[in-house]
């Protein structure tokens, strides 16, 4: 079926089959591999995107459900010349190791800070608890979120 959606501010079309996830459509049809597939069952958060401003696991959303809606992926935040402040904070804090979880954690942080610009440590932990990171032990990710938050 044909779907039409807004991705990172651009109108895009895709021809998807009924069982296809938004994650697969983004990665393999729309040329946006920034969202990662690590578990395909909504446990790891590596595929997190904003769907109409709400944080979702794109592996749990059918591509067809995104028809007519607005999606923001990690590719839609910053550019090499001008990183988004959350991206900048992840680099500066050493929050990136293998980086496979990073797109999802960056999106989760953007989602958190939009609702809660100055989160407490407990709010940060809770907001990021749906995103697994196997490399960092999360400490430097918390540092990055604190740095990107409004003081």
């Amino acid at each position, binding site marked *: 079926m044909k779907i039409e959606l807004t991705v990172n501010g651009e109108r895009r079309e895709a021809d998807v089959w009924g069982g296809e996830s938004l994650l697969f459509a983004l990665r393999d049809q729309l040329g946006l591999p920034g969202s990662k597939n690590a578990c395909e069952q909504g446990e790891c958060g590596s595929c997190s995107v904003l769907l109409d401003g709400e944080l979702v696991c794109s592996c749990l959303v059918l591509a067809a459900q995104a028809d007519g809606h607005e999606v923001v992926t990690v590719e839609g935040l910053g550019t090499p010349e001008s990183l988004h402040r959350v991206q900048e904070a992840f*680099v500066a804090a050493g929050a990136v190791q293998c980086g496979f979880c990073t797109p999802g954690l960056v999106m989760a942080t953007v989602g958190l800070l939009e609702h809660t610009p100055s989160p407490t440590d407990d709010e940060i932990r*809770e907001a990021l608890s749906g995103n697994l990171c196997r490399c960092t032990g999360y400490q430097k990710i918390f540092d990055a979120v604190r740095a990107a938050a409004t003081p």
Partner: protein
Amino acid sequence: MTEVEVQTLAEARVEVGIATPAARPDAPPKVLGRFAYSSDLEAAGMLWGHTVRSPHAHARIVSIDITRAVTMPGVHAVLTHDDVPGRKTYGLEFADQPVLAVDRVRYYGEAVAVVAAEHPEQARRAAEAIVVGYEPLEPVVDPERALEQAPVHPERPTMGHGYRDDPRSNVLRSMVITHGDPDAEGDVTVRGYYETASQDQAFLGPESGIAIPDGEGGIDIHVATQWLHVDRDQVAPCLGLAPEQVRIHLAGVGGAFGGREDLSMQIHAGLLALHADRPVKMVYNREESFTGHVHRHPSRVWAEHRASRDGRLVCVHMKILLDGGAYASSSAAVISNAVSFALGPYRVDNARIDGTVVYTNNPPCGAMRGFGAVQTCFAAEAQMDRLAAELGIDPIELRLLNAIEPGDTLPTGQVMTGSLPVAEVIRAAAAIPIPEAEPLPRDPIRLPGGAGNTTRGEGVHRGVGFAVGFKNICFSEGFDDYCSARVQLHADGMAVVHCAAAEVGQGLGGVILQVARAELGTDDVVLETSTTATVGSAGSTSASRMTWMAAGAVRDACRAALEARAAQGGGDVDVERVYRHLPTWALDPETGQVTGERAHVALATCAMRVIVEVDVDLGLTRVVWIGAAQDVGRALNPQSVTGQIEGGTAQGIGLALMEEIQVRDGRIANASFTDYLLPTALDMPPVESVLIEDPQPDAPYGVKGVGEPPTVVSTAAVVAAMRDATGKPLRRAPVRPDEIVGLT
């Protein structure tokens, strides 16, 4: 941002500019979503591969029928063992694993056939259409019973390699270390039995890559791996190609932790691509990933510690049994590490250490961060705490009293030289101030079990634990351990560095640039993608060796390039150099004593103090705080070093509290992130790190590896704190809630 405390014990050799860390080149593309991981690659005309895996832990294969699969839409290749053109088996140390099962499967998930099709879904459906006739056999699943059961490998592939000849069935390797007088008696004896479960590396980026035929019979394979050249040397013979016809290129690696030392999809994608004459991409899903790589060995350890009344260790006996699973992988080296570091960083004049790793029909085990030292640290440190209690000595004092130092002898007979600041590390960890207990009631997010804890915290007990552990840095026991690097200096001043070392997320790219810029005196340095095509082997990103080895090789190549340029009076220069650390020697197979000056080139120590809160009514645990001190040689990049300590600690917390591959009759019962639990942001406590700098004299810039020691220690330290909180013996990791509330 947290300030890192660095305590420098001795002056490092000052290198111009080397102390300035370089920004890691991979971080910006990673935060932008533009970094190309092995699962992100594409090639024109690409097919998708899929693997058919055994649903049995042990079975005879009586038939494989591919007739329906080959006729299905989009299918370009359906291959079985008959289609492997070269050697039919492969392996990291012993070629005992079939590329595709021939007449028998030995573990749940073993590869039997592979398929390539236009769309991944077509490949999956074609794989389902292959009919494999199995005749199930009784699986060997208990490592103790395995010693008397029918052999999983009757041909005994690991015997006759200089190992002890052990006649017992299913022995993959056994070792004995006899040191001093093992009959020496102490005033006090404590005996204990300990177990650890099998742990999954659970790297987030699944096994994946793409194989592209070069049109001349050879192949390029882009893959996430830890050692490019050893992949090539295993892949080429199975594909029936010369090594130079197979080029391995490093694709973006989504974590490794030992789980990418062995091959996964490399040969399979190569076979399919050469057969179909099209690029073939393979990506495992999470369930397949659990069967697609080796795991941490489950262990059983029997220990007896004898000490004098004043707290000196007199004699230790330890018996270690590891379950190696169905194929050898790196088990022979893992058991060697387990016995070599079994007693912990203590001076023990008399010991007998027995170690055996066996073949079974359980999932194959091999390398995982800590590599054999995790299991024995868990046992040894529990014994030290029991000894302290028995003697009435403070546990930290007891450790300091017995701490090994340079000049002391390891149980393997190696006299330690160089950097070994064990006592300093213990003192530094013990000196980190402990936070005060938080009063109740409080937000349930900070109760054991978090928001799931519906009590007011009346069952919460606080406990404090301490542990110390060590392990080797670099490869040991006579292995020819080296790293190559190539440096090209262009007349315009730009430098290009080639090194086949695998960046697996630790920040190696930054280290290489830091070294090259300091040595060459210019910031105009480019690091090329790691590949077998343009430079010699770097060895493995494992054994906490890569910073040391790559720094050595890049330093030497840079200096040689500058010399060459000076000699020729300018212009372009292209030089390659090989760096080797000091030589090591094998252990005697009968006595476990080192046959030369050293078996290990260096050791690194970590100590941790842990605070936990355990809800003894609900069996739930919260790790509140960890203070760690680690001997790092010299920290080239303190931020990366603390990142390794924090991440390594998290993996040890996982094994202490929640991570266990549940294996029933050889089958993995929890192959998903829903059922195999990893520490989340809510499970991780703050980790306060102190870096102890005591430069390693023979290492480039005095560095040591840092990745593994925190993982070795944290499981032992967390469970020690849980014993303190509960008063229960807790002899097994992970600790189950049932044990805390007394249901087992």
